């Protein structure tokens, strides 16, 4: 009998420490499914960030490297340059990628480093207990934005749309934004991840999939309510889809403007 659906080989059969309703577990699973489908479990390496997903090395059943907070893309650069035929996954949260590690992600993307970043955007700091993230929406409350994010008088800045920001860089070849708030979006996100991983192994350039993900604990919501909040508030601002696709054989370009920076 053929097994149609089971636990992915690349994910250990153990319960995660993630909170009820957290998106990391689902995101881990679809990454593991794609790795199984591509048959690259023994050629995969994940760099797990500082943040809730620092635990990911407990769950993925392949090699891992744990760098300093925000330095994940620099470490992934070192790994991928030494092991170009391996699948290197740079797993980052919004604090890791869009705050403390902004320089690292921009320059890794601009160099066209051939690893794939999985950018989990839940608009809040999870592990440290609900502080404002670079992607926290205007008006959204956090322990460090107790009256809501206020870009005006309080000078808290604006939520950063990372895919759109990176789309201007010549080194980026595939930037997509998915969400794990419902089954349809999970399936689409998995397709984006597969496309990015395949492009990575073809050596095309920098690839990233941003994934909108709920954090019921720090949003102060029940899991179901959190998914509704994500759909009603995050998706309208963080538009889903392929933000930039200049992979070989694709006809797409970029939703915003794109420059290649160099003479052809």
């Amino acid at each position, binding site marked *: 009998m053929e097994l149609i659906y089971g636990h992915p080989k690349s994910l250990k059969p153990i319960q995660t420490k993630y909170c009820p309703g957290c998106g990391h577990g689902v995101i881990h699973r679809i990454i593991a499914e794609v790795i199984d489908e591509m048959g690259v479990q*023994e*050629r995969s*390496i994940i*760099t797990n960030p500082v943040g809730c997903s*620092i635990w990911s*090395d407990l769950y993925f*059943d*392949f*090699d*891992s*490297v*744990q*760098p*300093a907070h925000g*330095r994940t893309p*620099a*470490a*992934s*650069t*070192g*790994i*991928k*340059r*030494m*092991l170009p035929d*391996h699948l290197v996954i740079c797993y980052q949260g919004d604090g890791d990628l869009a705050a403390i590690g902004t*320089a*690292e992600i*921009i*320059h890794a993307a601009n*160099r066209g480093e051939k690893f794939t970043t999985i950018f989990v955007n839940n608009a809040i700091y999870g592990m440290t207990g609900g502080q404002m993230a670079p992607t926290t929406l205007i008006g959204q409350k956090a322990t460090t934005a107790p009256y809501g994010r206020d870009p005006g008088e309080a000078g808290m800045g604006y939520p950063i749309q990372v895919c759109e920001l990176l789309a201007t860089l010549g080194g980026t070849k595939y930037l997509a934004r998915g969400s794990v708030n419902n089954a349809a979006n999970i399936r689409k996100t998995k397709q984006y991840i597969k496309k990015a991983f395949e492009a990575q192994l073809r050596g095309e350039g920098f690839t990233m999939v941003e994934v909108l993900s709920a954090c019921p604990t720090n949003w102060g919501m029940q899991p179901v309510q959190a998914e509704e909040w994500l759909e009603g508030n995050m998706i309208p601002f963080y538009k889903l889809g392929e933000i930039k696709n200049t992979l070989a054989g694709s006809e797409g370009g970029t939703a915003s403007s794109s420059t290649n920076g160099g003479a052809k």
Partner: protein
Amino acid sequence: MAEEKRLMKGNEAIAEAAIRAGCSAYFGYPITPQNELTAYMAKHMLDKKRVFIQAESEVSAINMVYGAAAAGARTMTSSSSPGISLKQEGISYACGADLPCVVVNVARSGPGLGGISPGQADYFQSTRGGGHGDYFHIVLAPKSVQEAADLTYKAFELADQWRMPVMILADGLIGQMMEGVIFQPAIDPASLPRKPWATGHQADTHREINHISSIHLVPAELEASVRARFKRYDQIKAVESRYEEVNVDKAELIMVGYGTSARVALGAMELARKQGIEVGLFRPITLWPFPDKRLGELAAKGKRFLSVEMSMGQMIEDVKLAVNGKAEVSFYGRCGGMIPTEEEVLAEIRRILKK
């Protein structure tokens, strides 16, 4: 076949020796006075189809080193004092994750932006574990271009052997000056043995998965891991301490100096001899582990010491710890990029010995 003697800058000699030692990935960021090293690596690593990246910052460079080391490569970064401060986070992580790599500090004078002239004020930072946490790493201090090259080979060997970052602490004078140098034969990186703990190539052996990490959230586990590392430090102290002695048996006073200061001290020793004063030089080559055992033996013989440094007095603390109250220890230093002259050091020797 014997290698020809070549006239080279210290910075370039370190770079060439690193390439010959099998360094397969170099990551750097421009900073004076070590720029020739990065430029040499750019040309020669790219020529050899090895990895060279000019990183966006020193912080990124050391973390690229962290990644390349995690993938099993011989890897290196270089910088100068302010840049080395930025790398300390990464060095702490590499020590915590037991990753071998080589970090070169062609030191200048501080604090802050300070100046670009040679300095030895990074001694504390280099030898005390300059980042957060309980750790040490090997520190090698060359006094010449030849020794800079020789210690670069040694640094890669020691890093792999003891699974830790090894720092070469030179200064702007060692980096910028030209001297004759003979290189050892080149090692092909592909001929180096695979590291069984590193990530990658799992498909070749179907081994268990490997994790490279410095995290231990259970205090008892972290304590055990730190204690295990300190046991390794004890082994390193027992076998890796290196030093050079000149005229210590006859000497009424032994100068202690490393790198550029040791060169000045040697000159002062010659001047003193012409005036009938016998002084000696004890030159630590490993600043960590500090050669304290031998210094303690000399103290027990009734010698007195003069620590000569390009700082306000940092290594002198290790000298005092080594002699443990058994001998008098004096200090002479210049700072801010000033290099002590042989005459100044001689005057201090005469003042101490009342001659």
